[in-house]
């Protein structure tokens, strides 16, 4: 599949926005869906639907096999050792909450420290904050350098004998900084500290290899990977999934239930209580096939070229300031314009069909650190082109014209 012609695989681009072609630059928020994924959901509901893992009838068996196929596809896609290390969740947020809750319950005590970074999305901070309230743990933040990067040194500086887990993003959804996860993991493991990676932005844009990264937990958001909403993945090393307590209780996650006692199911059932997002899981297999057909190597090459082009364009544009200047940068271009608030930028760009996000992007800690209340963010996906970035730039110029800036 050729990436240069990929837009036609996404039905959304057949529509106009305010009578303009859609220039979709909000993929860090959520990506658009290729036709194969949308069709798969329709086909499953119209021809193959059944709940999974319970009944023995024909449809149930077939649906269960499809559901488990996706687990194996995900395992291969991220090079996990074992398919049972893949847990489906309702989103990356739930994946992180699962870790914070179960690890917190079993491994954290008053005064223990969780080390996060200033780049973290609220979903990798708020779940830990609950433990600050309930267990009296402490939360520390590794500080960004002047480029908006988190280095191994900034992590090392904040490690103490009380550090019990490190939670880091793989790729910042604001600055685009790509973190040295492998180095962080190696260092953390030398101190016996497990590492949780928020891979929301990493998974759609980077080649993942869990065995190489060696992190203990990796959270994935499927709707940012050209997949359905309502679905996330927690990768966790088997030793953790075996050791940690269950997260939610309900049907499907049990072994034996008696009035006096309950045992829990084997992996991965132990962490998949209740009816799961069956159709989404089955359709997500199409997202992975789709990405595999293009090849993550090509995805990375395409986006790297675009991000360099976009950076160049915006740097040349007077009064536009890029947020952060990380050494290794993923598919995110956050910026501010002196004299125009990001919300005004977003509204004016929208009129031209250019969809960006404005606000703090669920990263208030980072915006506070940078002295900003908000920023405008253009984020890329596989369907974007240089033409999209040219339109972004000309729409920014339109903005400046309305606000009478030079």
């Amino acid at each position, binding site marked *: 599949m050729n990436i240069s012609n990929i837009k036609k695989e996404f039905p959304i681009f057949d529509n106009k926005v305010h009578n303009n072609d859609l220039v979709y630059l909000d993929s860090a928020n959520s990506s658009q869906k290729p036709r194969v994924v949308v069709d798969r959901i329709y086909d499953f509901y119209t021809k193959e639907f059944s709940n999974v893992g319970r009944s023995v009838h024909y449809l149930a068996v077939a649906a269960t096999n499809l559901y488990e196929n996706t687990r194996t596809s995900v395992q291969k896609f991220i090079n996990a050792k074992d398919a049972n290390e893949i847990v489906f969740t309702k989103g990356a947020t739930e994946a992180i909450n699962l870790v914070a809750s179960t690890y917190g319950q079993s491994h954290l005590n008053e005064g223990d420290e969780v080390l996060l970074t200033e780049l973290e999305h609220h979903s990798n901070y708020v779940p830990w904050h609950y433990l600050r309230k309930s267990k009296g743990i402490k939360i520390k933040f590794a500080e960004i350098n002047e480029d908006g990067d988190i280095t191994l040194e900034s992590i090392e500086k904040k490690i103490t004998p009380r550090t019990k887990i490190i939670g880091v993003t793989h790729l910042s959804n604001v600055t685009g900084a790509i973190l040295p996860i492998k180095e962080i993991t190696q260092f953390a493991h030398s101190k016996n500290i497990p590492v949780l990676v928020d891979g929301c932005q990493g998974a759609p844009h980077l080649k993942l290899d869990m065995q190489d990264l060696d992190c203990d937990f990796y959270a994935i958001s499927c709707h940012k990977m050209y997949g359905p909403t309502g679905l996330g993945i927690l990768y966790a090393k088997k030793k953790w999934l075996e050791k940690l307590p269950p997260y939610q209780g309900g049907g499907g996650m049990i072994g034996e239930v008696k009035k006096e006692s309950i045992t829990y199911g084997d992996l991965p059932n132990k962490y998949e209580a209740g009816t799961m997002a069956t159709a989404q899981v089955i359709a997500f297999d199409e997202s992975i096939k789709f990405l595999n057909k293009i090849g993550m190597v090509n995805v990375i090459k395409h986006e790297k070229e675009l991000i360099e082009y976009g950076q160049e364009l915006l740097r040349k544009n007077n009064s536009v300031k890029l947020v952060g200047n990380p050494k290794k940068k993923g598919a995110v271009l956050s910026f501010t314009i002196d004299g125009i608030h990001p919300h005004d930028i977003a509204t004016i760009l929208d009129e031209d069909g250019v969809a960006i996000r404005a*606000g*703090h992007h669920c990263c208030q800690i980072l915006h506070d650190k940078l002295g900003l*209340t908000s920023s405008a963010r253009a984020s890329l996906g596989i369907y974007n082109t240089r033409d999209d970035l040219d339109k972004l730039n000309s729409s920014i110029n339109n903005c400046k014209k309305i606000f009478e800036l030079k």
Partner: protein
Amino acid sequence: MNLKELYQEIILDHGKNPRNLRKTENFNKDAKGYNPLCGDKVHIYLKLNENKKVEDISFEGEGCAISMASASIMTDMIKGKEKNEVKEIINDFLEMIKEKDEIKTNLLKDDEKTKLMCLSGVKQYPMRVKCATLSWHTLTSAIDKSQNEINTESLEV
């Protein structure tokens, strides 16, 4: 209504050079407003005299052109009004933003009404309505002192 009409001269002028952007000395009423979705913040200060007349009103804060212009225009026309009059103007403005096209109250001069009606265009941009109403809800709160901080996410408009 198109974008150019929303971002017209009056809004841009007040957005860029907000009037009354300062802190009233000896204020006796104040309230903070916050929109957690975009981070817009406003802090309104009021000085009501013994006849419940607004002797001075000012605000501090940061936000988009719409929210800054709205606060600027609001503070300009509230000055000198009595408490009950202030409430009538607030209600009239919020009704206009929600469903009507006009400002009805007789408490304002025609040119003042025109200024307020510049903001009616945000109706076309539902995500931006809260930008225009934040300072008005905060003013209500300051006058009544019913709540310490207004949060747009707990309000209807």
